[in-house]
């Protein structure tokens, strides 16, 4: 029975909670990054994130995160009449936001490089198993 439980556990996918935490931790960086090149309104930011399914988020709460980023001084916003019958609220990065994003990216690169070194044996083993099939 213990054996079957162990087998069951090893076949389980990674915890949803762990994945959610990882996504949440990266979301602020992803939203700031989506504004790096140009100003966008909410739906455009969602499209940029939704194209990468692991970064998809509940739509209503995007505006809460943008609101928070604005209060923290990382983004600014302005209502613009886009000629669609209803105005759009455009967001852009402030200088502080750009600096914050640069710092996040620097940390992210170092963090993922360190993690990749640790994961290398796991990835290499998986590749060997795939090659043997």
């Amino acid at each position: 029975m213990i054996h079957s439980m162990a087998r069951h556990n090893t076949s389980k996918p990674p915890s949803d909670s762990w994945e959610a935490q990882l996504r949440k931790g990266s979301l602020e960086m992803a939203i700031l990054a989506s504004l790096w090149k140009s100003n966008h309104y909410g739906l455009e930011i969602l499209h940029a994130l939704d194209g990468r399914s692991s970064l998809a988020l509940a739509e209503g709460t995007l505006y809460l995160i943008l609101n928070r980023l604005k209060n923290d001084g990382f983004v600014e916003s302005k209502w613009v009449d886009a000629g669609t019958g209803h105005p759009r609220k455009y967001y852009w990065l402030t200088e502080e936001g750009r600096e914050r994003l640069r710092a996040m990216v620097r940390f992210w690169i170092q963090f993922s490089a360190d993690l990749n070194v640790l994961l290398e044996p796991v990835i290499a083993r998986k590749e060997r198993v795939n090659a043997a099939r």
Partner: protein
Amino acid sequence: MPPDDVTNAVDEYCNRLWKALHKLPGSERDEIVREVRGHILERLDAEPKVTEQVLTEILRAVGDPKELASEYKGYAVLRQATHSRSPWVLLRAMLRWAATSVVGVMAFLATVIGYGCGTVFFLSAFLKPMFPSRIGLWLAPQHTLCFGYWNGQLSGTVLYGISVRPPAFVLGTLGPTDGPVRELLGAWLSPVGVLCGVLCFLGTSLVARSLIKRFSQNEKWAASFSYAKSSASPSLQSLR
């Protein structure tokens, strides 16, 4: 779906959101609802044909108005708390925190004890002139030191207030003791009580605020658990 029905459904959703945001300032509520309404209308514009199912899916993807409002209100409480010294505001933020983690529960209890001590100091300072023989800083048997009320009996002595009987610290009362009880401060109790009360309230507010600031990064993520799209929510692509 007739355009009027679509407009009515969007209006109803926005009204529910506006009502659910009732604790936020009016201008902030209007801004949030305006932005969410704009988002829904953008999504509808992108649809070649708006059916009831499409509309329902869009509204579901935006989120339940009550849950969405709760996230906004949670963030508002947190934001207010990081800039406030008001015990009421800080306790509300702590209570929200306590509902999400063990650390939050401990921080909330510490804050309640801090403000509780401050209240005892102020009450004692206020009541001392009225009950000079009952309110004081009492030295009782077993090295008990208590700032507060003494029941006036040498047998079955009970003290209420801030009590220290090494190694115990109690906000409330310790078990009854027998023996001599001595008052240490006399008329000085009122000014000392006011001073200690002010220090307790300011110190507790300062510590509570710095704890909220320090842990708010994590709490933001905790509050934003629903940021991660659940698998039940339709993706934008599925609606394109």
